[in-house]
């Protein structure tokens, strides 16, 4: 126990120390800050590997490191770690992918002015993200949850001089807080319902009495997931978050943080009721389709990938909602590999093209940037689900699961798979082939070795990461049972269904990506200048490009409803409370003073008059006129 807790503390505190040192001493020494941050990422990766090697397969370890960390009256909670195969899998993804993205950043941010700020932000992020992964109770998860939100805010606003980054960072934080609002209320109610927020205790209470959980708690906690994993209706922040540096998009807004929502769902799976699971399944399915369709009309390379991330998160949510958390986690891991790779590839392209992000202004990059092109192609193939690559195993498992559970969901997800291949093909053919369409693209050059190396490493993972046998057993435990179940490798009632449908499903899945990639080639052609969809089917293009006007709706709400209401309330506050009540009272008292002052005129005549009327009044009272 001792070594595990030391290792875990090491994993958690290394990035924190790195961030503190950078903030205090290395603000102006960008290079040292960068090396320190990378070194801490390396240390995390090494400590994690050490941890994998000492934890026996399938063991669940819980360590309380700080009893009664915060105590108030009858409420108290401890800091602790809960390690199970799920944790180890995500720990591997975060530390390993995180490390390579740190390395990549060395090249990408080499000439940036705010280098120290950037790497300090990465370290804060690693700290908070690892906290979510190993936390053993809801409150601790919430704390780190908010902190990743903050580090995401800080990193999106890296290019703070641009209006775009300023707005995007604000939007990301506020939208996330809307989700956290439900999460927070959910935690409070959970605490009062069960008397604890510790995951293991909750699990055992609910295990004994399944009826003690209810849909309200599940739905409230789900809000946290909706915000962080950018699901409908809080998905609007993720595409905008692309205003941050591209390696940040790779790390935070594709591979790890947004996936933390899925991980959180898996962590609290036992709290969910069937109806809420059903909602999540449908929400994920529709997001898979929506994200894919939105990606088709984008021309910014990062936005295409961002909508693709939304769509893939939808797949994970669907898998979870259908009752296969293991498959969601498996897809989370492979997605982290290939989407991390794709984002880093796009970063390499953007770097090579002098910060050009419009794919219609690129073209012909295949010749100029051969390494980037090859690795990018691998990423696309893995994402599209080309047979025997990583995405194929995880996505097809989800499709099979959907087929077994719900036909409608299956067909929507299958359609989305086709769309995925289509928009990725579009991006690939337009940006990498044909002739350069701008000066920036003409002058593009291959990125330096420090950026190519992470691409190579991640493409190896994207190629082979889906082979379950390649995974260390204590990690793959997390998804193995669901995976075996779905692929007919274990004895179950599903086996027959599997054998009947599997060949067919496999063929449909294969056809989907072939049609998608070839279809986009025929439709758009190599390195085309304009968006053929916009030319051939302008109304369809406009419809897809409107993205159901959700962003416009929020903008209208913020500008016309929220702001107007706030202004109105402020005015009422000034007029009614500050004016009428406070000033009014003061005025009334002033008036009384004015009247009584008027009585004291100083002239004898007036006093005689008042004396006489008083006498009259007294007399009237005495004879009983008033009674």
């Amino acid at each position, binding site marked *: 126990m001792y070594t595990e807790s030391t290792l875990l503390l090491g994993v958690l505190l290394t990035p924190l120390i790195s961030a503190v040192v950078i903030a205090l001493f290395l*603000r102006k020494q960008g290079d040292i800050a960068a090396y320190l941050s990378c070194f801490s990422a390396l240390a995390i990766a090494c400590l994690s590997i050490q941890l994998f090697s000492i934890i026996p397969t399938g063991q669940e370890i819980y360590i309380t490191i700080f009893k*009664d*960390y*915060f*105590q*108030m*009256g*009858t*409420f108290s909670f401890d800091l602790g770690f809960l390690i199970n195969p799920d944790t180890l899998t995500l720990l591997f993804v975060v530390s390993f992918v995180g490390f390579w993205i740190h390395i990549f950043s060395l090249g990408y941010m080499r000439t940036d002015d705010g280098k120290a*700020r950037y790497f300090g932000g990465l370290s804060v992020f690693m700290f908070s993200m690892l906290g979510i992964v190993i936390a053993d109770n809801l*409150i601790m998860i*919430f*704390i*780190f949850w*908010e*902190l990743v939100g*903050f580090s995401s*805010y*800080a990193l999106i*606003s890296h290019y*703070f*001089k*641009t*209006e775009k*980054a*300023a*707005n995007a*960072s*604000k939007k990301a*934080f*506020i939208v996330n*807080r*809307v989700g*956290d*609002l439900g999460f*927070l*209320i959910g935690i*409070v*109610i959970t*605490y*009062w319902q069960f008397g604890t927020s510790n995951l293991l205790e909750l699990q055992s209470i609910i295990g004994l009495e399944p009826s003690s959980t209810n849909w309200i708690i599940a739905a409230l906690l789900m809000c946290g997931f909706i915000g962080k994993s950018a699901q409908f209706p809080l998905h609007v922040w993720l595409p905008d978050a692309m205003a941050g540096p591209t390696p940040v998009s790779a790390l935070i807004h594709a591979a790890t943080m947004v996936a933390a929502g899925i991980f959180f769902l898996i962590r609290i799976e036992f709290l969910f009721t069937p109806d809420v699971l059903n909602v999540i399944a449908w929400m994920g399915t529709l997001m898979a389709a929506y994200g894919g369709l939105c990606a088709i009309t984008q021309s910014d390379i990062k936005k295409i990938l961002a909508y693709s991330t939304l769509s893939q998160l939808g797949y994970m949510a669907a898998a979870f909602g259908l009752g296969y958390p293991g498959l969601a986690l498996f897809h989370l891991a492979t997605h982290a590999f290939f989407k991390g790779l794709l984002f880093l590839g796009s970063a390499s392209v953007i770097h090579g093209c002098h910060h050009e992000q419009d794919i219609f202004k690129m073209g012909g990059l295949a010749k100029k940037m051969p390494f980037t092109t090859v690795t990018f192609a691998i990423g696309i193939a893995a994402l599209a689900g080309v047979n025997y690559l990583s995405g194929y195993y995880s996505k097809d498992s989800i499709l099979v699961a959907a087929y077994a559970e719900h036909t409608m969901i299956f067909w929507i997800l299958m359609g989305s798979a086709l769309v995925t291949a289509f928009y990725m093909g579009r991006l690939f053919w337009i940006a990498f082939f044909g002739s350069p369409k701008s000066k920036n693209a003409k002058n593009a050059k291959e990125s330096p070795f420090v950026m190519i190396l992470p691409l190579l490493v991640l493409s190896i993972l994207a190629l082979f990461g889906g082979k379950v046998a390649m995974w260390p057993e204590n990690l793959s435990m997390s998804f193995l049972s669901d995976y075996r179940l779905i692929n007919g490798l274990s004895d179950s009632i599903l086996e027959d269904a599997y054998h009947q449908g599997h060949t067919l499903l496999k063929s449909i899945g294969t056809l989907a990506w072939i049609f998608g990639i070839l279809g986009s080639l025929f439709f758009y052609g190599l390195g085309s200048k304009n968006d053929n969809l916009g030319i051939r089917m302008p109304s369809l293009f406009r419809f897809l490009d409107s993205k159901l006007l959700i962003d416009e709706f929020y903008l209208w709400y913020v500008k016309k409803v*929220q*702001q107007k*209401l*706030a*202004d109105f*309330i*402020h005015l009422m*506050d000034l007029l009614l*409370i*500050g004016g009428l*009540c*406070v000033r009014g009272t*003061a005025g009334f008292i002033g008036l009384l003073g004015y009247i009584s002052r008027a009585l004291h005129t100083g002239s004898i005549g007036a006093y005689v008059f008042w004396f006489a009327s008083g006498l009259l009044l007294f007399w009237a009272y005495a004879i009983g006129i008033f009674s």
Partner: protein
Amino acid sequence: MKNVDLLLPLSIIIPALAGIFILLSKKESQGFWKSFTYIGFGFPLFSAIVLYSQFDETIHYNFKMKFLTGLEDFGITLHLGLNGISMPLFLMAGIVGFASGIYALQAKAERIRLYLFLLLIMQSGLMGVFSSIDIFFFYFFHEFALIPTFVMIGIWGGVGSRSTAMEMAIYLTLGALASLVGLLVIYTNSGMINHSFDFIALSHHLSNTPLETVLQQNIYGILLFGFGILVSLFPFHSWAPKSYSAAPTAAAMLHAGVLKKFGLYGIIQLISPLLPEGAAHWATILGWLALGNIVVIGLATISQTDLKQMVSYSSVMHMGYAFLGIASLNSIGTGGAVMLMFGHGLSVALLFLLTTCIYHRTDTFDMADMGGLASKAPVLSAFFITATMAGIGLPGFANFWGEFAVFIGIWGNESIQWMLYPAALGIVISAIYGLRAVAKVFYGQPSVNFQKHMEANTVRDLTTSEKIPALILIFSLLLAGFYPGFVSNLINRDIDGFKPDKIVEGIEQPATSIYLSHMESKNGQ
């Protein structure tokens, strides 16, 4: 009596004495009055830290001391001491006082010695408020600290500050008067043979022979009105935004940060334990008013275009959480309110300080006339973002624990349970106005006016003398944020009513606070 106990009265006297010396000194002898400023503000902080470290958890009131005042016939003695609730606030007063003091030194106000004198008088009163066991002196020290605020706003405030100072003076005096009436009614009706203002004696007596229910309810109502005005409870808040915008920075820091907590402190430490029936009676109404603070004032904060006004409104808004904690009627929520008072005092002082630093660089408080300041003043921008994050309750800062405990507490009181939903909206509202301000002031490109201003003046980053007070506040916020037990253990010890056996035997007693036992007896009926 141990020697360390002497620090308590000294931390009240020394600032006042230092102030008088400064007033009497010559303007030319800068070294003289500067060093007295350091002594006057440094000593309370020093003694607060020493007292914190010497605090004995097994004793109810630490560092007790009694001074005869000649008013013993009325039951008035200067009785000082600290318990688990007042100790953190005493420490907070020391920290905020020191930060505002050294900030005031470099602010270069006109008539600087008078300015420092008034500030030191405030500081002296503040240390007295939290260390008085005697209710009379608790009230006395509050007035002692309040009067310099009016004067400072009147003299050093901006345009129209005279009428603002007047309005604030009248309004707050009304509040203070109402609370005085309430306290006097408790005093006269306590039924003690020798009438006493001593809180310990009163609480012993009243816990055995409580006041009649109706009387409790009426007194509590009056006190809630009076204290409510002082803490800017909705709808008695109108004075706050105006006064803080007009007040000179150091005074705003001390008033919004520390002095305003007087009312909350009075309710939590004195009134609710003495009048539990009254607290129960008014809880729902208090909850409604607190929601007014959070939602109504929160929305009004979003509408602000003036940075200092926004900070002022936000400080009014956050008082709603503290009141909700009190309305929860349980130790979780009430303790959370104390925790929040600690955090809020530090964070709002930091915000006022940094707002003035921004003003010195932009020459305006209008956020529309700023923009892009982060590239000119990166440290200022990092500090301001930190302060904003602390204010909106990000984990890692003291405020988070306060707000969180309040949220937990609300759900524990079934009659106001539903208020959790609208109250939690506050975390979104505060994020909206906080981050908007950051984006408008620091991000993007400079506005046209600010561009012009920058061409005419050089805009520098924070100077060292501005950095130091800010760093002190940030450090304290982070300390209590990362190690909440630093503050919460003390609060937790006393929030249920102090039970010595709980600590000595190390056995967790069932919660039998005055509140809880009251609630239980009600449910039993």
